[in-house]
């Protein structure tokens, strides 16, 4: 499995780079900047360019097809019984390829004590991601219904293997792949996104990958919509289906409503109200999501 993940990365990175090198080999002058505000997306809790909970087909960074860009983000989610911290960095290459790394820390606070793990027990996860834009243009192709399409893969490694297997998780590392399509309907100031993710991650991997109820990868749908209010502000909602692999705890789909504000071309602030449902037997995990993304 780990070999497959590595192969996916290598393929996603190599193909466009090789094509670019052939086109422009003698004098490579690489630019930065050039995207319109908000069109790089924000950073998901897993580090991809997209919404807050689900990746979009847009590529992170301010670069156009002639340059490179990057983003870094810090995101906090405060829930009744847990706190999630996510931070990471991502690179955008020629508005074509996106490479990302994100660290997640999930603090169980008092729940840790109740479960016998100790107060403030924290699950940690590293997420390496690669995304390749394969077709279309979400912004300029306003005369067709065809969306911008990207495919991607994430490799995830959880720090708490022993606890993961104690709760019924099969693996402390895992991979997932996804295809995502984004369309901006400028005519009606709307952004629509749909993602299909092939995954077996429990709570995105914070409780491991695969479980005693089901170990196989399954296809999950994720949807987001945004309403463009100004060149700097988009508000919207997201829905993310999730697997349900662990016998001890039901896992729910995730929902949020969000607002993102591009303070300028470099900084974007996102606030959301999230409903993450039941997590490790503690129900109704609704709370506030705040994220700051800096980029060039």
């Amino acid at each position, binding site marked *: 499995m780990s070999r497959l993940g590595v192969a996916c990365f290598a393929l996603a990175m190599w193909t466009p780079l090789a094509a670019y090198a052939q086109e422009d080999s003698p004098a490579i002058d690489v630019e930065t900047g050039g995207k319109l505000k908000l069109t790089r997306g924000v950073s998901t809790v897993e580090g991809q360019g997209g919404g807050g909970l689900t990746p979009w087909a847009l590529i992170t960074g301010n670069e156009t097809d*002639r340059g490179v860009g990057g983003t870094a983000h810090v995101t906090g989610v405060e829930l009744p019984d847990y706190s999630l911290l996510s931070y990471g960095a991502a690179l955008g290459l020629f508005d074509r390829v996106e490479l990302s790394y994100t660290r997640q820390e999930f603090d169980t606070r008092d729940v840790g004590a109740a479960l016998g793990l100790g107060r403030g027990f924290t699950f940690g996860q590293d997420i390496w991601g690669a995304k390749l834009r394969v077709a279309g243009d979400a912004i300029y192709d306003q005369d067709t219904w065809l969306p911008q399409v990207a495919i991607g893969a994430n490799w995830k490694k959880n720090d708490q293997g022993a606890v993961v297997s104690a709760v019924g998780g099969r693996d402390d590392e895992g991979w997932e792949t996804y295809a995502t399509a984004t369309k901006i309907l400028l005519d009606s100031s709307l952004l629509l996104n749909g993602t299909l993710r092939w995954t077996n991650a429990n709570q995105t991997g914070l409780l491991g990958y695969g479980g005693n109820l089901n170990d196989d990868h399954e296809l999950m749908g994720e949807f987001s919509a945004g309403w463009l209010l100004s060149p700097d502000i988009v508000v919207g909602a997201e829905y993310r289906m999730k697997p349900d692999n662990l016998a001890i705890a039901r896992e729910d789909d995730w929902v949020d409503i969000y607002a993102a504000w591009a303070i300028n071309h470099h900084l974007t602030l996102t606030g959301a109200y999230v409903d993450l449902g039941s997590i490790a037997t503690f129900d109704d995990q609704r709370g506030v999501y705040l994220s700051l993304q800096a980029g060039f």
Partner: protein
Amino acid sequence: MRMALVCTLSAIIFVAPAFGQPMPPVPPGEETVDAYTISDANAGATPVDGQDLFAAFHGHEGISRIVDGLVEQVQKDSRLTEIFKASDFVRLRRTLKEQFCHILNGGCSYTGRDMKSVHADHGITTAEFNALVEVLQAAMTREGIVFSAQNRLLAKLAPMKRDAVTR
């Protein structure tokens, strides 16, 4: 008389095959340009339906102020000055106003050149296209055009990137 005949004949020969209108005389203050076929198809987009968007742009006066503001700013914006330094701004203002009016269904004919040939030699990049979009957004906002109406015009202009951007 013979002269007039030659003129008419050559006009028919050069212009008629494309079913366009003959080249009008050069308007005052504008430079001459090489002959081309005049047609609304050169505008690069069909008009929107209905009259509401034209009204939302404050009609001819609104479009005129937006284009004047746009053409003034492209000469000041450091990302664009170089590209526009040799431009005929009198002609650019006139043709842009015609084009916006035509697309917004304000009943104007577009008499300028097509988007591909007029931009071909400028080596425009995506970043420069976006810079122009930002300058246009600012000009529309100064005119008080609501954002959703701005986007309906931009939706018509966005596909022209395929013709305008060559680098």
